């Protein structure tokens, strides 16, 4: 009887420890960690405090994994925070792109002005050499 009870307890413990839901969440947390690492590496413009929050909530999610209610809140926060960081990264990239294009258009305009000035000089030279 005792043996049966021990087996039942062990079975129940093991079942709780490796629940398919937990496995799935763990895998998602790992995915979040990977995302966070790549965001950290991608842009120095992301505020550090926001990165720290994401880091903390990801670790909390891992730590609270066996406990049920806490895990879902920490995971949610980490998930939303990393999504927020991804958006910030995209925003930063868009801003950078817009700045680059702004510089590019300025460069094109300057070049066009230079070309126009050079052309005016060439026309002046033509008129000097071959007056109408």
């Amino acid at each position, binding site marked *: 009887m005792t043996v049966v009870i021990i087996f039942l307890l062990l079975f129940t413990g093991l079942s709780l420890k490796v629940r398919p839901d937990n496995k799935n969440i763990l895998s998602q947390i790992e995915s979040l960690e990977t995302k966070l690492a790549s965001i950290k590496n991608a842009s120095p413009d992301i505020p550090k405090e926001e990165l720290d929050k994401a880091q903390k909530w990801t670790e909390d999610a891992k730590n609270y994994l066996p406990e049920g209610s806490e895990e879902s809140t920490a995971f949610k926060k980490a998930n939303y925070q990393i999504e927020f960081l991804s958006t910030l990264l*995209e925003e930063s990239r868009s801003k950078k792109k817009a700045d680059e294009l702004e510089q590019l258009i300025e460069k094109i305009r300057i070049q066009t002005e230079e*070309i126009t000035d050079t052309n005016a000089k060439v026309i002046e030279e033509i008129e000097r050499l071959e007056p109408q």
Partner: protein
Amino acid sequence: MRIFFLSAYIATVIACASNNLPPTGDFAVSYSLIENAEIGGGEIYAPDLMQQAKSFYDLAEAEFTAGNYEESESLRQVSEIIAKTVISISRKKIYEDEIERLRSEINEANSIKRKREAELRENILKLGQIKDRIVISQEIMHSSALDKLEEATQKIKAAEALSAEYLSPQLLNDTNENYKAAEEYLNKGENEKSIERSQKSISIAERAIEESKKKLELTNEIQKRLSSIYGTRVENIKGVIKVTFQGLFAPSSSNILYDAYPSLDAFAGVLSQYPALKTTIQANPDHLENQDKNIGLSVKRVEAVTVYLVSKGISTERLRTGSAVINESPADTIGDRRIEFFVTFDNPENIQQINYTPQGSN
């Protein structure tokens, strides 16, 4: 919602302080963020997330009211994160719109630039062609200038080759001056001016040649006519026609002999026929002991001839008195009483430049 929050906030401040509850001031921040997300276009750019943010905020408020402060704080944080995400998405959309606008402007600017580049290329090509034409034109011009200068050289040589006494010194001088100027312009690369001066030099040289030839022909013709006058001896001394009349006067007299009038008339006729002719009259008197008398007689004879020629219609402006020739020995009396006329087309002053030793003098 805000009124509710503020009421709740006031009501729970004391409890929060004593029971270590989450600070309700953070709700205001979250609410403000949601409002900002909405104002920034969250409903347009990320409507689902906007809805989520509001839902989480409402849940957070509900949990707060229920006294579940920790759950409330977590939900509030989630709503805040979502609101910030929405704000970021909205900003990203604005940047994307800006990128779109800039790309359109870049296309337009590039189009203008390409157009200007094409114009510039076309004009540079045109300028190159003009410069090439100028170089060719300058080479042709230089060659023409050289040819003209050579032509001028030949003309000047041709003019100089003619009998010098018939060539106008003034014209020769002018042609040489123009030639020098043409050379200088050529050396300076001013080909057009060089050609102009060469052409001028050629024209003057041609005129000099023409005039010289005419003068030669005319001189020959006049010389021939004068030679046919009775009692004259005609010589051509460097372009000046010397006509010597003898036996015009009786010894020691300044009265023209009757027999001499036909010859003088014929001479006056030649002068009348050629109005451009001028003459210098010079008398060679008798050999007398008294030199003063000798000179006086000579002057009187020149005057007599002058008066006669004037009476025949010859203008005094065309007649000039030459210096008297003094005979110094009896041998010099040979040919005495002769009258000499130096006929020329030029100014009679030119006669003084002729290296001529009158016959009978030393």
